[in-house]
């Protein structure tokens, strides 16, 4: 059963056709890889999918309903959470507070509740904090809960971003190059974490440069090149696809 169906997505920046007629469908419970050379349009696809950039063409059906692209917070509420290629944390908030912000979409007490410290507010606040700590534990940085996000190590920042995304209770988690800049140990840890996510029933859309990681982790992989999808298949078939080999030829990744 497909959880997300992107149909004929098109996006242009001035003269650059960053995405051209991209269609792909992600099944519930799978880890779906999106790869391609630098500048292929992977991040742009994320940005369109999560409503950050307006799209020129196409539509997205998520969980059986058309997704309202254009308002990022509604995409999050519909159940898509993401991380960013260039980590975007709330630098001067603690790790715990970062994850607590992630609970915003699933909680509701407003100004009046906050000012009067209503019972509902206190309970909700306690639940938010509890959940944040659970998630920090889940991604393995519980001991850094009170540290400022900006003071975390690079690998821990990536994990914190994942915890914050998980706090929004997504059905689909979209990770934009989560292993970028990680050393081998950190990458191995990340892999364990993502495998755990799948085991816990989450669907994952993974952009990654580390081809070994993608091939080892993903159920299916799509390849973008110059904004077009040139392949979509199980990892082994993609690896041997002549078009893919050609796209990667001469670039550093193998």
């Amino acid at each position, binding site marked *: 059963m497909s959880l997300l169906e992107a149909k004929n997505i098109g996006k242009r920046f001035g003269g650059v056709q960053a995405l051209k007629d991209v269609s792909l469908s992600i099944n519930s419970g799978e880890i779906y890889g999106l790869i391609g050379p630098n500048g292929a349009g992977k991040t742009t696809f994320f940005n369109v999918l*999560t*409503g*950050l950039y307006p799209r020129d063409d196409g539509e997205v059906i998520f969980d059986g309903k058309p997704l309202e692209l254009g*308002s*990022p*917070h509604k995409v*999050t*509420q519909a159940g898509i*959470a*993401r991380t*960013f290629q260039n980590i*975007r*944390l*709330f*630098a*001067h*908030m*603690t790790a715990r*507070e970062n994850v*607590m*912000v*992630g*609970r*915003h*979409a*699933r*909680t509701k*007490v*407003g*100004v009046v*509740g*906050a*000012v009067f*410290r209503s019972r509902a*507010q206190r309970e*909700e*606040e306690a639940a*938010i904090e509890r959940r944040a700590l659970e998630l920090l534990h889940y991604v393995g940085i519980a001991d850094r809960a009170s540290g*400022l996000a*900006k*003071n975390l190590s690079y690998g821990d920042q990536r994990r914190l971003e994942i915890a*914050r*995304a998980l*706090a*929004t209770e997504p059905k689909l988690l979209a990770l934009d190059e989560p292993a970028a800049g990680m050393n081998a140990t950190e990458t191995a840890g990340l892999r364990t974490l993502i495998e755990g996510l799948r085991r816990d029933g989450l669907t994952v859309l993974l952009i990654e440069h580390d081809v070994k990681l993608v091939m080892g982790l993903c159920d299916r992989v799509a390849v973008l090149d110059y904004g077009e999808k040139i392949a979509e298949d199980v990892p082994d078939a993609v690896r041997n696809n002549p078009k893919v080999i050609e796209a990667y030829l001469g670039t550093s990744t193998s």
Partner: protein
Amino acid sequence: MALFLAVTPFVVGAALGNAWLRVLDFALLYIMLALGLNIVVGFAGLLDLGYIAFYAVGAYTYALLASPHFGLHWPAWAILPIGALVAGIFGVLLGAPTLRLRGDYLAIVTLGFGEIIRIFMNNLNAPINITNGPKGIARIDPISIGGHSLSKSIDVFGITVPGLTLYYYLFLVLTVLIVIVGIRLQNSRIGRAWVAIREDEVAAKACGIDTRNVKLLAFAMGASFGGVAGGLFAGFQEFVSPESFGLMESIMVLCMVVLGGMGHIPGVILGGLLLAVLPEAFRHGAVPMQNWAFGKVLIDPENLRMLLFGLALILVMLYKPAGLWPEKQHRLEMRK
């Protein structure tokens, strides 16, 4: 602490006289303003250079509803919430068209907004006389509580408590209320959303925050604090005119927030207190000091005041860029 705050006006009144009691009352009004602006600038990170407009809106709301100008004499307890509401609405009016702006651009638009409000108050005396123009509105009803006007002194157990002291207590109570509201907002889902927007708006959106609404809420909350302070100001002064709401006032309140420690409520209170009291001290002290040192007045105290104010700002920005009393975390990191 409570005792200290309670006896302060008596000590000040006895030692320094009524002029300083007034300074103290104004300091509390400024602290309220700084706390309101702190929500917009300190928490949500939206640079607002026209904040004094909301003070003006609150003041004029009070003036129009409790003065011979329209012949209305509503009680303060009814007007102050109305003033907060009206100012809040103006906050949304300012916020709505500026949602996409940040930093310098936002600062310029808000600056314009502040001036527009002031110009309106200056000119809304024709064709229908609403604000009485540059002459302002006089003979405003003083605030009264339980039938007793705070402008008159009362005798309590044989001690005469002057009106200025009564206002002090009223302002103090409201300042404490505003501090409590501010702290509660800061430690709430909404407060976190404000800070998240300040830190990274894109990431905030990705966390499911409707940044448009949450920003408008910041503008409205900050403005309503200003509206309350404005109403108190009108009742206290018994006179309002557009002159009191110029750009310099907006900048002054912003300086209180920045100098004290943006986003840190105790710091903002300190900033408000210092900037309300120190310039007055210079004003009172400059002439005798110069006479004593040089035998004559070399520099006009008003100029000296601005000079020292500028100098103080530069020094603080150089040596304490996060403000005099920043949040602990900020302080730790500024040291690095």
